[in-house]
């Protein structure tokens, strides 16, 4: 098992960079796992709003109180640049100014230009707050026109505005809690392909390229080691590395989510294993082109980032355009994400379709193996080696 041992010696040199990936991934996953909630009850989104009260009357305070009930108030400096920065970077969703003379105007039944708002773009939040303000004003006006006193009208408006609509979550989502594959788990599994690609391709390909360097290959070829044994050891070493990395992530997932995989979560485990195998075959294919160290780094980044952005790993599939998705179908990560989304109940779960996704990924793996064999055949065929030897001889003279 000398070849096998040598492989792990080479791998050790790449361990630090692989460790950086692993540590970053666990750190980010831990933060995400702690931040999200598993609750399936509907909660209205609370906007972050800054209010600049120029009127400063009991009436304007009353309005601020109502806004505060369903939104969060953020105190920021009243400086145009600060407001602009805060709006742009979404520290606040809306910057409201209650204009001077608000109470007097409202008392007189006037509704125009009671407020101003610093406007960056026509976002959902802006439309929502605009509707809310209009609604409040017209409610107060309605009570005033019933002949009520101003104070009474304001109080009644507040009372009327506290209506609460019944909101249900789509029932299928509710079952998510019983499927033993929580949204957090889904997130953990969702980002895994990027890390798997980055680590496996950069390490396995590097090792294979190193083992295949001319001098080392010649030395191995003239040893009494059988070709089949050599290939087997290479295969075993690569597979073991892929398996260890995958196992590490599975154990990490259990620790982060503080539970053992049960029920449907096993589908996701299987899914990630299949994907790890696909990436392993991809690494072998990349290695068969014998890229230089810096080119290999670039290939790793291109495959990792490219698949992550194209196939909905970094950003949800829903926001990708159809054109992108039609290209993504030709990448294995697309099918991984598709299966993962079904398992997580983000899209309708169907066992048949999940298995179909598995099979397609395995198909990619098979294709990769075939292409690798072809490349090797062309590269190391008698004719190719003959030309290479001639070239080398010519270069020496």
């Amino acid at each position: 098992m000398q070849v096998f041992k040598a492989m792990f010696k080479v791998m050790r040199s790449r361990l630090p960079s692989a460790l950086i990936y692993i540590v970053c991934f666990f750190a980010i996953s831990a933060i995400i796992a702690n931040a999200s909630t598993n609750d399936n009850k509907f909660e209205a989104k609370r906007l972050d709003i800054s209010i600049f009260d120029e009127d400063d009357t009991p009436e304007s305070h009353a309005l601020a109180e109502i806004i505060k009930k369903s939104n969060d108030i953020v105190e920021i400096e009243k400086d145009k640049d600060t407001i602009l920065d805060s709006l742009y970077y979404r520290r606040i969703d809306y910057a409201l100014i209650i204009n001077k003379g608000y109470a007097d105007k409202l008392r007189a039944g006037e509704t125009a230009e009671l407020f101003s708002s610093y406007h960056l773009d026509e976002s959902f939040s802006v439309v929502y707050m605009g509707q809310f303000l209009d609604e409040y004003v017209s409610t107060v006006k309605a009570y005033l026109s019933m002949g009520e006193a101003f104070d009474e009208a304001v109080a009644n408006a507040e009372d009327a505005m506290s209506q609460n609509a019944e909101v249900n979550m789509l029932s299928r989502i509710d079952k998510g809690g019983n499927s033993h594959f929580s949204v957090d788990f889904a997130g953990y599994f969702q980002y895994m392909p990027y890390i798997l690609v980055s680590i496996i391709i950069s390490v396995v390909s590097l090792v294979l390229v190193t083992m295949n360097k001319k001098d080392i290959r010649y030395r191995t070829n003239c040893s009494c080691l059988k070709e089949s044994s050599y290939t087997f050891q290479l295969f075993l070493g690569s597979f073991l590395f892929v398996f260890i990395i995958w196992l590490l992530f599975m154990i990490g997932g259990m620790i982060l989510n503080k539970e053992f995989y049960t029920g449907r979560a096993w589908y996701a485990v299987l899914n990630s294993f299949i994907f790890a195998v696909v990436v392993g075959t991809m690494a072998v294919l990349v290695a068969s082109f014998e890229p230089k160290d810096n080119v290999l780094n670039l290939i790793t980044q291109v495959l990792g980032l490219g698949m992550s952005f194209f196939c909905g790993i970094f950003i949800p599939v829903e926001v990708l355009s159809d054109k992108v998705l039609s290209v993504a179908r030709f990448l294995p990560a697309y099918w991984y994400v598709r299966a993962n989304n079904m398992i997580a109940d983000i899209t309708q779960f169907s066992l048949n379709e999940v298995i179909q996704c598995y099979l397609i990924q395995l198909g990619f793996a098979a294709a990769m193996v075939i292409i690798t064999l072809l490349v090797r055949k062309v590269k190391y065929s008698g004719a190719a080696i003959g030309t290479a030897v001639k070239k080398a001889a010519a270069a020496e003279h």
Partner: protein
Amino acid sequence: MFMHILKYELKNGLRTKDLIIWLILFPIILGTCFKIAFGSIYEKTEKFSSIPVAIVEESENAAFRQVIEGIEKSDEPFLKASFTDKEKAEKMLDDGKVEGIIFTSDNISLTVKEKGIRETMLKSFIEQYKVREKIAMDAINTAPEKAQEVIASLTSETASSCRDIPLTQGNPDMYIQYFYNLIAMVAMFGCITGMHITMQNQANLSPLGARNNCSPVQKSISILACLTGSFILETICMVICVSYLAFVLKVDFGDRLWLVYPSAILGGITGVSFGFFVGSLTHIGEKAKSALLVSISMLLCFCSGLMVGNMKAIIAARIPWFNNINPAAVIADCFYCLNIYEDYDRFITKLITMAVISVMFIVLGFVTSRRKKYASI
């Protein structure tokens, strides 16, 4: 002699594969990925558009139907309603074709799939309807003679109570700042070329350095020539990067694109100076040095928002001074200012900051690399 060294520095740089890979190819690939990812996300999630909703009438509610039809007739309708049955509606919601289902019976209820702003707006819409119902009831109970007038005033179109104060003419898409940070990253990666300057001019760091040291050229001239060469190379990379983003990917930098180029180039110079300074600082090997530089640059880019979009705002809230000295943040801020601000005050402040940082690094680099002479054996 200056021109001679400069010529070889340029030749050397153009033949370094690392330079082409990390300063030209990598940004192009990452930029393309960003475009794919963030190209339509703003339009799809942030910018207001009619919210598609399915309406299932469990029992006849003519008043509600009238309200919906009224809304749909307006210029910029808030809802896009489709009346259907329960089964179809749930399928539509599941497929993401609608954002919610409104069930109308005596009590109107809403079913949604997610917990976002659009769902909240639907909820608030139903609540508004209920508020109006309550007002009408109150009016009939308390002042029946005025009820007609009250209801009429509720349904009549009123002018908006809120006046918008526009803040900028620029592109409000916040996802564009990923491209600003991409340019900042390319600028910071210039530190690798900066590092090579010291590598090539110190005898104990590389064989080339040893050769250069036995030539009769003054060290300051040789370093200056190398520095100029690196600036030129970095400038080429920055121009390629910005041009690719602006013309191939069609990223909207606002209407002052001609100012984006000099800012990017100055940013590149800052990056090179940074690498020059760190390179001259310590005697560690080339691999370790470049690893150190790349990790520092990446960390600075992270703090400026290359990975997490609103990182800069988070830092601004906690340690605001850091954004003013973090070169990556300063470079990215330049493009932000050009896009968002009408006036040039803040933009010029950022440019001055960059220039000061660059000069400081260059001076420090010269100070630390001078008087390193080697006795002949």
